[in-house]
């Protein structure tokens, strides 16, 4: 499978829910510390020997920390920018008309953005200003702001089954589950002793969440019995940056870490780590699994490379 080299350091990669060969990559200059950012939209080549095709790229004034595809329109995507704004891009419009919206309400860096897969009209953004905001495409201001965390909220992820439920992972070491219809969070899970950098819902069991933490472990929780985790997955050498459950398999998840590896896990078996990929030569910070192609994994890292490969194969094989 080919490799794409981005000019800036990679931060996040997301497969399009509409096109199986399309993905968006969020990048930031100078490791996201200072400088511009860029969102790349790539198309996987039909044959492994040909290179990626870059459909479009959008420059931003500050680093782009995350990107999310719209579930309602195949050409829309939202970028989470480090200056606190969210930018909405439309691929069907010429680059001069992009971004079509800029939503600037967060006072600090926006770390993640996630589109609602059930209602398909709204998305949530989580920021270092300790808040999570709920938005829809047509409104210029946020619908709600969820302010309960005590430190940066690194991730906010919608539940794949319940339209109004989402979870958030924060540097205050808690995982919170929220319901948009409720005034505050419905559940607080003290999931780790250290910062939680990412969380993701199980796509087949609507009460199971995985959290990835600075303590180098990924823990899988059933929120009904949230005192003890279902599984503790150890194996990464440094903080785990992102975790993603497979859309095709109820016990399969992937994680990427500051130890430069991407690991694949099956949390229901004894020896949970079923794959380890050391293809990145810098921090691996973004990983995603395709909904449309079973077993297809994409990862990106600070080494400015985007890899797309099938689980079980070598990402660096041509």
């Amino acid at each position, binding site marked *: 499978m080919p490799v*794409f*080299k981005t*000019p800036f350091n990679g931060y996040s990669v997301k497969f399009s829910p509409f096109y199986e060969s399309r993905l968006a990559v969020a990048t930031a200059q100078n*490791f*996201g*510390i*200072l400088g511009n950012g860029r969102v790349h939209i790539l198309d996987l080549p039909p044959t492994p020997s040909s290179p990626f095709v*870059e459909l479009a790229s959008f420059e931003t004034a500050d680093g782009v920390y995350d990107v999310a595809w719209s579930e309602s329109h195949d050409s829309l995507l939202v970028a989470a920018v*480090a200056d606190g704004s969210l930018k909405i891009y439309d691929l069907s419009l010429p680059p001069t008309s992009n971004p079509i919206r800029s939503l600037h309400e967060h006072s600090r*860096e926006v770390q993640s953005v996630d589109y609602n897969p059930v209602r398909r009209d709204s998305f949530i953004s989580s920021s*270092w200003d300790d808040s999570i905001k709920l938005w829809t495409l047509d409104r210029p201001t946020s619908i709600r702001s969820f302010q309960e965390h005590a430190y*940066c909220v690194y991730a906010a992820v919608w539940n794949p089954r319940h339209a109004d439920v989402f979870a958030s992972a924060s*540097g205050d070491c808690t995982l919170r589950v929220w319901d948009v219809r409720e005034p505050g969070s419905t559940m607080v899970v003290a999931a780790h*002793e*250290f*910062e939680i*950098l990412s969380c993701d819902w199980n796509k087949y069991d609507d009460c199971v969440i995985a959290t990835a933490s*600075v*303590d*180098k*472990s990924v823990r899988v929780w059933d929120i009904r019995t949230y005192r003890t985790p279902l599984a*503790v997955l*150890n*194996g990464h*050498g*440094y*903080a785990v*940056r992102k975790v993603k459950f497979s859309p095709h398999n109820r016990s399969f998840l992937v994680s990427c870490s*500051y130890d430069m590896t991407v690991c694949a896990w099956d949390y229901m078996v004894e020896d949970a780590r079923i794959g380890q990929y050391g293809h*990145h*030569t*810098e921090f691996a910070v973004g990983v995603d699994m395709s909904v449309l192609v079973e077993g297809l994994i994409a990862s990106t890292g600070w*080494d400015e490379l985007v890899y797309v490969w099938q689980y079980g194969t070598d990402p660096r094989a041509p």
Partner: protein
Amino acid sequence: MEKAINRQRVLLEHLRPSSSSSFVYGSDSSSSSPPISASACAAGDSAAYHRTSVFGDDVVIVAAYRTPICKAKRGGFKDTYADDLLAPVLKAVIEKTNVNPSEVGDIVVGTVLAPGSQRATECRMAAFYAGFPETVPIRTVNRQCSSGLQAVADVAAAIRAGFYDIGIGAGLESMTSSPLAWEGSVNPKVKIFEQAQNCLLPMGITSENVAHRFGVTRQEQDQAAVESHQRAAAATASGKFKDEIIPVPTKIVDPITGDEKPITISIDDGIRPNARSSDLAKLKPVFKKDGSTTAGNSSQVSDGAGAVLLMKRSIAVQKGLPILGVFRTFAAVGVDPAIMGVGPAAAIPAAVKAAGLELDDIDLFEINEAFASQFVYCRNKLELDPEKINVNGGAIALGHPLGATGARCVATLLHEMKRRGKDCRFGVISMCIGSGMGAAAVFERGDAVDDLCNARVVQSNSLLSKDAQ
């Protein structure tokens, strides 16, 4: 600026959380991760990092491959013609890069022991087997053990001089076919020229001289040998060598029955994964009674070949070839023939200085392990970090096919630097040379940021006016 400092602090907290409670590790609670601390940026104004020189006329390496290395006379290549060793690697550098062979300006092959003219003709024949047209010339070069590296340096120099744009530096040795021997009588003048006489010393005696004069103990030598075998075995087991080895289809003739069997050799057969110092300690010294140099802590006598494709950076970019490495400098220096093993200790500082660098700037070394005595001496003399030297094993485990060693080190070094990422920027290859010399070359990791690497290649620019074309 405040924002940048804050972001840095948040990221640092991920790596070094300030909470002092210890982590709970599933299986491995005994080893704790080394404490990480943020340090002031080491790159000052004069540091190499600030000098990112990416010029179109840099000589870059776009491909480097080697054959497996096999024990001479008993190993996989014992019935292989020398030209059949060279042809596969010459073919590989062309095939894997899709370069048109007729564009190659010259091929220089480092080769040591065989009779000069015959070997040069064999190399020409090998080029034909590899599919090169008659228009591509070829020559050999002999600077003893450094011939492979010298060949690469010669091609780089010729490209710099403008003789051609694309060249191949290669190395070849079949120690099965050509034994180390002196033809004819020795000039009686050597009786009055001590240095000339010392040129005739067997290499093992020079190793004993180095061990004795600089106090390298038998234990240190055996330990270095064990490490070489362990690292080479680990590299082979993890598949690291797969990137650089070209499998060679050849034949093996059974010495007793005379039956020929076709075979494809794809791994080095000299490595002993289970080498232990206790076993090595039992070996008797070979060259001197009460000496310390044994068969176990000397390089092996082997067969092998390697080839490196070099070209101008502008040509590589034009062809869309990924750049594996950049050739920076080369230095050959002379030392006392009686202790020829000290060659790298003299040559490495010269080459590093010529590149405008310090020894600390070098991230990876390939120092040929002709003998553990001289290898350990050079490592200690230059105060190098052993974790950066011969990380995938050296000649003691892999073998030392004299002329091929330099070229095979280029393949091993550049592929390892590529695996290690941007952090591993500069590498050095060095070896001692029989008759009292040392050679060293500095390489830089490839893939400098090329802003246009994702750009569409323009075939014909019809936008320029007629005058500009």
